[in-house]
């Protein structure tokens, strides 16, 4: 009996390594432990043995069974390994480039806009949006711009023939135009909402300029408006200083240059100073306009200037992007060359 079992184990041992696929393995396994397998037969033969031999033979059979199972397990592991290798295919060469397109990009103007907006969000400003098609009252009159101000000329501002713009509400029957600044968003927000207000309005504006290295028929602005009780010039400076330090670094130096805008009094242009620009022969570069909201503007939107005060500021996104990224021609932004877009 023992010899018979040894031979059986030896046979399994010898033939097991030749097995390559799972089906062969299963039939091989059945040859020993299947219903008609040799080990099964041996176990069945146990019944005919005298009682005293049973424990001895039983032990032998058990030992043989354990050996077989070990052989089967090893064999199966090898087969599984092979199967997995097959499923994976050939080994890869990781040095090959991915055939997928390079990552997508956000436009530098969009990145700059979001950066500016996110700075102001941190100090409690929220975004306000308005339409690009606007009316003369919202772009000029409400902002205290005199009826014969040159900015209203056909030479400088794009107008529309008399048409009905259903989602751009006019004040009376004034002309429709393409907004020349996003200040119209301030007016619409002041009219629609209640103070205190702290809004930032990024958006596209239009001026009737011939396209060249520094001019574009449309461009983008970010304007801010801060309305509360007892707002001061000092508050204006605090907010803008915060912004410039966030945008340009803690060493950013700015100066307020008195200027004139119809909608603010006092008004300032803000210049910023950079060692990088000094090399180009320019010490100070204009970066933004700002000022305290003119009492006339408050009156135009039905606010009491004795009760409410505030400031407004506005900057060109193209201009800031050009300074920050060192771009010398505004037309790059609108050409959409991938060699440009992928740099940012």
């Amino acid at each position, binding site marked *: 009996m023992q010899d018979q079992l040894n031979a059986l184990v030896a046979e399994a041992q010898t033939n097991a390594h030749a097995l390559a696929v799972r089906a062969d393995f299963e039939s091989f396994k059945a040859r020993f432990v299947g219903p008609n397998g040799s080990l099964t037969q041996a176990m069945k033969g146990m019944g005919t043995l005298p009682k005293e031999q049973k424990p001895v033979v039983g032990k032998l059979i058990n030992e043989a069974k354990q050996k077989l199972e070990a052989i089967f397990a090893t064999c199966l592991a090898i087969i599984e390994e092979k199967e997995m290798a097959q499923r994976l295919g050939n080994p890869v060469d990781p040095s090959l480039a991915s055939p997928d397109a390079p990552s997508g990009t*956000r436009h530098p103007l969009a990145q700059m806009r979001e950066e500016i907006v996110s700075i102001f969000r941190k100090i409690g400003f929220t*975004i306000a949006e308005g339409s690009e098609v606007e009316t003369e009252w919202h772009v000029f009159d409400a902002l205290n711009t005199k009826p014969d101000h040159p900015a209203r000329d056909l030479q400088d501002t794009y107008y529309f023939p008399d048409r009905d*713009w259903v989602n751009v509400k006019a004040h009376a029957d004034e002309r429709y135009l393409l907004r020349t600044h996003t200040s119209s968003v301030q007016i619409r927000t002041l009219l629609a909402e209640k103070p205190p207000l702290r809004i930032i309005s990024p958006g596209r504006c239009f001026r009737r300029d011939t*396209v060249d290295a520094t001019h574009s028929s449309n461009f983008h602005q970010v304007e801010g408006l801060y309305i509360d009780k007892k707002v001061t010039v*000092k508050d204006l400076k605090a907010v803008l200083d915060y912004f410039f330090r966030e945008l340009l670094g803690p060493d950013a130096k700015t100066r*307020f240059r008195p200027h004139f805008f119809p909608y603010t009094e006092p008004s300032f242009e803000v210049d910023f100073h950079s060692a990088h620009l000094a090399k180009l022969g320019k010490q100070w570069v204009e970066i933004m306009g700002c000022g305290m909201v003119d009492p006339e503007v408050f009156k135009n939107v039905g606010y009491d200037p004795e009760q409410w005060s505030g400031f407004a500021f506005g900057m060109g996104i193209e201009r800031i992007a050009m300074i920050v990224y060192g771009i010398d021609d505004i037309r790059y932004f609108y050409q959409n060359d991938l060699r440009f877009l992928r740099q940012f």
Partner: protein
Amino acid sequence: MKLSLQWLQRYVNLSAKSVQQIEEALTLIGFEVEGVEHKGLPVLENVQVGEVVEFQKHPNADKLRLCKVKTHPNEEPRTIVCGASNFAAGDRVIVALPGAALPTKDGNPFHIKISKIRGQESLGMMCSASELGLAETSDGILILTTRPEVGTSINSVFSGNDTIFDIEVTPNRPDCLSHLGMARELAAYFDLPLTPPQTPHTCEISGNPLLSSVDLQTATCPLYYAFSICGVKIAESPAWLKDALQAVGLRPINNVVDATNYILHECGQPLHAFDAGKIRGGKLIVRQAAEGEKITTLDGKVRELTAKMAVIADAERPLVIAGVMGSLDAEVDANTTDIVLEAAWFVPSDIRWTSRRLALSSDSAYRFERGVDAHATESAALRCVKIILETAGGAVSGNKLQQGQLPQTPTPITVQPSFFREYCGFGPDDATVQAVLARLSLSIQPTSNGWLVTPPPYRRDLERPVDLVEEFLRIYGTDRIPESDVVNRGIHRKDAPIAVFNSLAANLLQSKRFNECVHYSLRDGKEIEQWFGAELASALKLTNPLASDQSHLRPSLIPGLLDALRHNRSHGNDVRALFETGRVFRKRPTDEGSLWELASVACVLLPQTDSRHWLQREKPDLFTMKGLMIELLETAGVHIENPIFEPLHETSLWQERHSAQTGDITQEGYEINLGTLNLRMLKAWGLEMPVLAGELLITPAFFDKNRSRVKFQPYGTQPASVRDLALIVDRWQPAESVRGELDGFARKAVGSAFSVESVDIFDLYEGTGLPEGKKSLALSMKFRASDRTLKDEEVNTVFETIQKLIAAESTYIVRK
């Protein structure tokens, strides 16, 4: 505006200030300096007149001379090595002594030091004209033939140096459009005394006026003076007058015209001199022009006037377009002997209108349209008379003729002294504020009601307390506004949802490897006509386009993206997927003629690109675009599991049968168009390849809807049962309608027993084995009960009922 430093110095002594300090001052008080130009010789220290006493050849160099040069009357001559040979002993020359810094073209000064040249010590340099910046090139050193005294500073020899500031004067400050005006500002800023030009109050008069009358007939001219001067001799102006005008870029003409121009740039009052002999009928009439009346202006052009314009005319014809420009008809010329000098004040807006309408600007119009100080008009005229008498001779003839009245002086402003501190947010005391305002000639009278501040007559821009705050800050110094921290109260307000959406959409598309583009909103009308039809094109045309390729508003972002595809392909860039977000403009479908502005996100995707890779990826197709656009719609807050897309018909933008549309812009506030763009149109565009595109249009009002918070729906733990079947349907039958119908049958069959969780299409087959014009759709139905595991039998019963319903209620055939 050009500002001469020498000219300014006549009214304020700026000699202690450097050019840089003045430039900075101008900038900080609100006059942006656009350029600084130096004329003549800059101020040079240690550069002076010397005399060559003797010279000999340099012992160690053939081409050099060893010179003895006397540079100070009481000092011994010094040794200077010189390379020039154009001088002789006894010549007076310019010597730069050690310590001098000569100007150079690159801006870095050339410092003169004691040096050794070929073994000989040289104690200075004899200069050529080009070394001093007096000439572009020069041959040899400069010999001073006028023989100034030895030791004289070069700046005394070559006077006439000047610095010209080109400044921007904001429209609220017409009082600064002159040298006197700017001198006032600088005097205030530097706190220096101002010495205004001396003006005679009267002048000696003989005889009678040259005119019988001045007839004032128009409200455009509230005030008019005419002075008569007889016996002038027209000639070239004296050097001081010519230099002054040339310094600010004017061409001298003759002594009379130059005198008027001088006054304009001195105190900002435009004046006009007529040749009295050319005034017909002996009088001047200030009147509205007749419609169509013609005048030949001094620039030689014939101008046709309208009745809204004012003219100064004689009895027969217009001689001057009021406030703007004179005509050739009454021009002062070489033969003029008698002149009439006009000094007037015109209503700014009328002059602005006329100047714009005629597209004719002049130094006069520029000042009148911004506002001239009428209270200084007469004194300016008297000063001009004085200069004319001095430079052209003649005598004032008769009294001045005057018509009209002076306007009111500015109204005093009542302001609380504390207002300055409250508005500025920092604490200059009353005395400081008062002192600063006084420097600007604002008179302050304390009253029980606060301060009564009276601006000078030329400051008509000062009307309210806030205007005074600006004046205070300008002169006090904006650099003294203290720094502080941002202190805010919380405000309940949300970001505009459209901005949030645009940003999310852009980030989504970026993550899908799209490149964001930005194109102009204005496009070519012809292109819009081709893509979107003539009706929309004509609706989107601007009144006043500047260029034909930017004449219309864009109705879609797609043409711009095609431009970018074409640009990148023609430049050899591997372009594949582009997108843009922005506003587009359309006709509102529901009502005739009205337009609206919509927000849009659009993308283009090339199914095939030129780039080759070692590994091929599956090509994108319409369904790639569909998936993407549905994701965008989700981002916009529209959650529809399977929005129904209908084929697009009759469009020149999209390829028929390869494009689709969903949503309804008027009803639902959004719309999606997607698919392959019209191949014929693409070819015309220079893109001979299929282009997949998608655009989402959204009305801004779409986001106004209140979005409620999601409420959690509990779900069961019971397993689902699935049954599949295949249906043979007409080839053009939209699969979604088949799916929808089957979904209906399933619900009907299930009733309330349990629920139909989903019905999905999982296979599509067209081809052999099917009848002509048919296709086969394989669908999978998922059933679930919330309270139990479904038994096979009950699902089978439902499945059979469904098949019966299909047979009875539809034309579909269940494929066995």
